[in-house]
C-alpha cells in the first residue's frame, strides 16, 4: 500500500494562498514549513536558497512546481515535507517550467532513507487530475484531505 502523504505532512507544514515576492521568499516559506514540522532548523532554509544560487533553478522540476531541497546536513534532524501553495505564481528563472505556484519542501538525512515518501510523491505528481485538485485546494485541511483521498485511490474533482 503506498504511503499516505497526508501522514507525512503535518498541518503546520502546509500553507495555501501564500504570498511571496520572489523565489527566495517562496523557498523561505517552504523552509518555514519544514522547521514547523520539526524536521529542520532555519539553517536548512538558507541551504536550500544557496543551492539555487549555486546551481540555478534546477529544483523547478515540472511546469509550475518546485521541489525545494538541499543536501543532508546537520540542519536536518529527520525526513520532512512541507507544502506551499502560492496565491500568485513566482518566477524562478527556469526556461521551461516557470512560473511556479507550488513549492514542496523536502529534507532527508541520507540519500535513500525516504524512498517510500519519494515514491508516493512521484505518484501524486504524475496524476494530472490529482495535482489539479491539490492546486485548487483552498486550505491546508483540504490539501491533506485530497492527499489522503489520492492515496486511497479516489480522486476528487
Amino acid at each position, binding site marked *: 500500500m503506498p504511503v499516505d502523504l497526508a501522514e507525512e505532512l503535518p498541518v503546520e507544514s502546509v500553507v495555501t494562498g501564500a504570498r511571496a515576492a520572489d523565489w527566495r521568499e517562496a523557498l523561505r516559506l517552504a523552509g518555514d514549513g519544514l522547521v514547523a514540522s520539526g524536521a529542520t532548523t532555519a539553517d536548512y532554509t538558507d541551504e536550500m536558497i544557496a543551492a539555487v544560487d549555486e546551481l540555478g533553478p534546477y529544483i523547478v522540476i515540472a511546469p509550475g512546481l518546485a521541489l525545494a531541497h538541499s*543536501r543532508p546536513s546537520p540542519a536536518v534532524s529527520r525526513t520532512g515535507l512541507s507544502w506551499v501553495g502560492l496565491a500568485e505564481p513566482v518566477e524562478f528563472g527556469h526556461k521551461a517550467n516557470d512560473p511556479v505556484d507550488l513549492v514542496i519542501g523536502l529534507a532527508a538525512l541520507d*540519500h535513500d532513507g525516504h524512498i517510500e515518501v519519494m515514491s508516493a510523491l*512521484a505518484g501524486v505528481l504524475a496524476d494530472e487530475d490529482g495535482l489539479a485538485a491539490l492546486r485548487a485546494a483552498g486550505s491546508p485541511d483540504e490539501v491533506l484531505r485530497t492527499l489522503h483521498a489520492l492515496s486511497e485511490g479516489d480522486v476528487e474533482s
Partner: protein
Amino acid sequence: MKIITVCGMGIGTSVLLKMNAEKALRALDVDADVEAADIGTARGAARTAQIVLTSADLVEELGQVPAKVVVIDNFTSVAEIQAKLQESIA
C-alpha cells in the same frame, strides 16, 4: 545498458527521475539499470553509463562525459522521458 539520473543534491529529484525513467523503460520494453546520482558523484558514475538524464541547469555543471546527455524538462512526465529515451536509444 546503464542510465544515470542526476540532480544537484542527491536526495530528491534524481530519485524521482529514476522512478519515472524506470516506468518509461518498462513501457519501451528496454532492459537497463538506472542509478540516481548527485552532481558530485555523477561524473564518476557516468563513465560507465550510456545515457545521463538531467535538468538543463546541470548540463554545464556535469561537463564532458562519454555518455549521451539528455535534458528532461518535466521530471514528472513519463511521456517526455519515454520519448527522449526512445530517441537516444535508437
